[in-house]
């Protein structure tokens, strides 16, 4: 604590901003994983690949079609979301009702095929993707310098998290998703097409991951394996937040992001461990917490 208090405010705020940016990616990725697990009981190891595909699609749209960042922010998640629907309808749904290990292995296989297939084509060296001119530079807030693009990521993530929460808790579609999560068999008998709902949910999860990928593209290099390093911490986040819980996932994502940022000041070597320490503590102290409803 003394270290934190003795730190110049701009440096502390800089670390907090970095923590919030990390938390934003955890939240966007965690939301998709969480709703897919909640409704489909699928531990989706292809989620990191969807994140990568979002970034790569934005890069390809710019590179080959001259489509700029703003349309790509919509188009890339849409394309990856449709691909998610296709994968669910052709492969993932074959394994419903079986042990979740089967779908975990299937999605891991899909991820490997996508990532290593694209690695063969594009190599592991990252490809640059520039942010739009209006989001470059930094804002002087008086107590800190805020890079505009990082501020945009946090803002965008908060808005998307609120939108997803509203979708799940305040719309007829969300009501159907919550009902189908709880009692899928019975929900069908209320005239709700549960198989279609599952496809849409898988597509939505993929689209959220792809959106995170487009947001990440200008600050990280676009690479076929960019999703691998993020996937495991995101799984830890959703375990901490309660698998299937929207607000639990978002709170855990930002909490862990901030914890990582602050740990980086106090004990930089342990920053990446923060998420796992909390996950182990949650699993040991509150094992029933790991699976919740929306």
């Amino acid at each position, binding site marked *: 604590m003394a270290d934190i208090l003795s730190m110049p405010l701009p440096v502390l705020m800089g670390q907090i901003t970095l923590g919030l940016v990390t938390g934003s990616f955890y939240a966007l990725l965690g939301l998709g994983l969480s709703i897919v697990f909640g409704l489909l009981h699928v531990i989706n190891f292809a989620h990191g690949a969807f994140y990568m595909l979002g970034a790569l699609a934005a890069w390809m749209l710019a590179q080959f079609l001259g489509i700029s960042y703003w349309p790509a922010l919509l188009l890339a998640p849409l394309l990856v979301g449709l691909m998610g629907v296709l994968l669910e309808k052709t492969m993932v749904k074959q394994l419903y009702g079986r042990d979740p290990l089967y779908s975990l292995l299937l999605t891991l296989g899909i991820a490997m095929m996508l990532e290593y297939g694209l690695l063969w084509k594009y190599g592991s060296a990252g490809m640059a993707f520039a942010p739009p001119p209006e989001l470059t530079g930094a804002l002087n807030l008086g107590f800190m310098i805020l890079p505009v693009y990082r501020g945009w990521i946090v803002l965008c993530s908060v808005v998307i998290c609120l939108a997803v929460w509203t979708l799940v808790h305040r719309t007829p579609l969300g009501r159907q998703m*919550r*009902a189908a999560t*709880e*009692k899928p068999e019975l929900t*069908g008998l209320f*005239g*709700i097409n549960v198989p279609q709902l599952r496809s849409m949910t898988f597509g939505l999860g993929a689209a959220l991951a792809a959106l995170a990928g487009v947001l990440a593209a200008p600050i990280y290099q676009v690479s076929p394996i960019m999703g691998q390093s993020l996937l495991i911490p995101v799984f830890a986040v959703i375990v901490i937040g309660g698998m299937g819980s929207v607000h639990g996932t978002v709170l855990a994502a930002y909490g862990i992001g901030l914890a990582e940022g602050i740990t980086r000041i106090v004990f930089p070597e342990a920053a990446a461990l923060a998420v796992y320490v909390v996950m182990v503590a949650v699993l040991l102290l509150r094992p029933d917490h790991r699976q919740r*409803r929306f």
Partner: protein
Amino acid sequence: MTEPLLRIEGLRAAYGECPVLEDLAFSVAPGETVALLGRNGAGKTTTLRALVGLVPHRSGQIRLDGADLMPLPPHHLARCGIGYVPEERGVYASLTVAENLALPRGRGNGMPMERILALFPNLAERWDSAGTDLSGGEQQMLAIARVLRMGIRLLVLDEPTEGLAPAIVQRIGAVLQDLRRDGMTILLVEQNFRFARRVADRFLLMEHGRITANLTKAELPEHENRLSERLGV
């Protein structure tokens, strides 16, 4: 003779390798209330679950108003006009009373909310309560109210009075009588013979997955002893 609303013929159903229903056949006329009676394990609940497509291994014929229901997925059955209230009531814990009632997507001519709340005034008082916060009686009322919102032609109830206080059983009975007067067709599974006797027009005794007796209300007294013996009442 009136064409039956529901006709089941040669229905077989099994859980894995274990057959539960064997060549089951019965029908329910429009506006009729039929009670399926039988001891535990006779196949009553399986009959209802097979009717609404929740038993994966089934064969035979199930027709509603002449239309074949066998190939239809569950979400189409709701649109055909079947409302199913399961034994465990199926109230969603994560949805409020209002959300539970707003969930169904039926035929679009469901019972108006004013009428629902007149039948079940408790639900108005618990409007924003989560499903888990309701008493057993309130959950049963909500489960029945929810299917009535779907514009159903056939109400299928599995043990509607199980575990309920006598006052609530009376209330449920009164609601079913009301629905009968409106012309609703009802098929119910019931262990509470006194309740079934009060609300039903016809009684089907099930044993070992088959119908072994088909009695009208007028025929009940002369078969009282046989029924008591078979049902253990």
